[in-house]
């Protein structure tokens, strides 16, 4: 429970993967095991982590798709945002 909470809080530091891990790891504890004293808290943390991770996932997906499609038409901005520019094509 302490770990779950810690991971949940740390995920706010722009660490969505931590939230994803959190929700997977403690999923079993939160939903599948017979109820115990701290299970309610763990449940809330797991659900919130899952929501946070999926928001990040959708946001990143949207950005990646836009960037890949539009990088060449963005000209100079596209080149400055790129780390490795492909050779021989726009």
């Amino acid at each position, binding site marked *: 429970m302490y770990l779950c909470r810690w991971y949940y809080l740390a995920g706010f530091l722009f660490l969505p993967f931590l939230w994803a891990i959190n929700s997977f790891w403690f999923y079993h504890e939160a939903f599948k095991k017979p109820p115990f004293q701290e299970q309610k808290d763990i449940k809330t943390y797991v659900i919130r982590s899952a929501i946070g991770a999926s928001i990040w996932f959708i946001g990143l997906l949207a950005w990646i798709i836009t960037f890949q499609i539009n990088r*060449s038409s963005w*000209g*100079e901005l596209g*080149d*400055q945002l*790129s*780390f*490795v*520019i492909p*050779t*021989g*094509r*726009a």
Partner: protein
Amino acid sequence: MGIKGGKEDVTVRQTTYYNYCPVTVIVATEVRGCYSSVIIGLGLGRRFVISWSYSSHFSFVEWVILLSVEDCYWVENRSVTIRVTWIGESQHSEIFALMDPYQAVQMNERTTHGDRTNTKIYEPVTGALACFRRMNKTHQIGCSSKLTGNVGVLHLVDSDDALNWVSRDGPHSPYIVLVYADRFVNRTTMIQLRDSGRVSGVLLLNSKTLKLDAFSEENTCPNRGYGLYTDPKDPRYCEPWNSKGNGLLYEEWDFPIFYVTDPTQVESLTGCFSHFNEPVNGTARDWPLCAAQLQSHMLAAVDSETCIRRENVFSLQPSRICDPMGGRNVWGSLFARSQQQPYSNNSVIVIGARLDSSSMFDQLTPGADSAVTALVAFLETIRHLTSVKNDLLASKTIENVYFMLFSGEAFDYIGSSRIVFDMKSNRFPFSISDSTTSQPAILKLENIKYFIEFNQVALKGKIPPYYVHSLNADGFFTEIQNQGQKIDRPLKFEQVKIEKDNKNSQGLPPSSVHSFVTHRDDLPGVVITNHNSSYRNMFHNSIYDSASAINYEYSEAHNLDVQGKIATLSATVARTIVSLANLPSEEIINSIVPDVDYVDELLHCYLEAGNCLTFQHMIGHDQLPSDPFPTYVGVYNNLNPLAILTQNLLSTYQGVKVSKDLKECKRNYDNQTVEYVWINETCYETTVNWSLALSPAFETDGRISWSEWNSGMYSTWTESVWQKFTVRIFLKPSRTHEILTIVFGALVCLLSFIVIGWVSKKSDVIFPSRPDGIC
């Protein structure tokens, strides 16, 4: 320390033995305790003309060109000796050679000791010249392949049926098209191939029996939009000077194009096609088919601005993607004249010509009529003038004669626009500096009395005359016609006629004079050519603009027409200039007579043999390539051997021999009016020098100079960087066959895991344990 032109054996210590020769040659210089090195060259038996020079940061300027690396042989499996050939001198550098393991891996792929599977599958096509990518401010032109190369099934397109087969009917697309020059020159054929989307490459085949009437990859109006007529509404904006041009050079191809020069390779390609691929009675053949892989990946794309920006963007591995095109302008003046005697207005005659031409393929730019004939006429005229220069000193109307060779004119006047730019900023020949005691007098556009240019002067036969296209220069025309009639004709040759181009509506043909007249309206400019309205040269700026295209034969007693006409023209122009000098005596004019043999020798050197005697004397040794030097301008940071040889030649004409030995024959930094050059064991004191021919749109380090870039007045051409060009053919199986092979391989792999797994589980049953004591 020091490299002197010639042959040299360089030894490399190495302990691992390879059965090939992967050696890299390095030229390095110690400058203030640090080594600055440039890596040049590769291994066994390959010939490279690669050049290198210092930038103006260093206080000396030297140049070395590596001509060849040959004779790589192992000595007792311990060290390798290679033989390198140079031209040029460098007193501050040393040659080193290194075993290059990266090259070793590459050589591995190429070895012909056929143990490798690679050599059993692929057959390389050697001597194929690639079409490469160039860019300007708004477009990219030329060809590029994918990073891994373009693969396609070979098909010979020599009829309309075959063309339809490739672009529409054939079932094995994508195709790599084999085509001869007579079909290639047809623009619609090539455009159709490109637009069909079923072509992944083109191989242009050289044929000795094919004789073409015309073949020009240049546009019908060269350098459109630059020079005097920049307004598209002006009727002179795009006059069809080059009427036979098909403009293929300026098209963008999304597949690679190679030119196969070697006839045996051409035969192997067509043989492979007819044996495996040729359709029988209109039906397609079955797999396996003969296919080829073309590799000519270009690193740059889009346009010059984008690629230069991408070079400068921060990244882990900074790399060169493209280079601005340019070279060296070679110039000189008849007299050395210091700044204490500035020129008056309209007192200096300037004679000009271009040094370069272009074509669609790398390394093949013979430029016979496009560049060389005018260059030779120019050289011969200068030679005549320098022989009477002491008499010309007395002239009151002409204060000096400047002669200039421009590099990069075929690409929107790179060289001439740069020189005019320097002139306008009062930087020509050198910018004024307080630290130098003696500098040559600044030449400004206002000082020019006449600008005379030679441009395409190959003529043959009785009838055609030379034409003088002039702007504000009627005085010159009267005089040159006068001299043309007076001059003694060399035996057997027809008189050289000179006529004025009277079609003023067409304007001036594309020539360097445009750059000058654009910046000074009333400048008297003259272009002397062999054509009136459209070019006589049917092979302008193309791969076929060679000696045979202009009917030139070296030393053939019955066929010295081309040489004779050029010799007479040069002498006539020289006489005209002397008569414009208004000297009291006519003797000097009459002393200038046409020298056909010398013109013949020059044409031979530039068109046929790079190792001719004249060039050997210029360089000081005989290790020169036997092919003629290409006239392509190249990129600005790469030395052009042609510019250097021509500069040395001009130095021997204009220069005076002085008795200095090699050590003393060096530039004097206090006196910029003359240079000291060591040619053929003599020291010459001469005014001949060179200046950077880089478009003003680029700064001297290749970055963009935005004010000039946006003005749209200067050339913006750059050339992409590439890594390698290879062409190879192989037999391609059908797609099903390929998939089956992979699946089979994967299954075998899986099976081996299962078998080993099972064996290791049952290991104690299969391998009974040995009782102790038995050996």
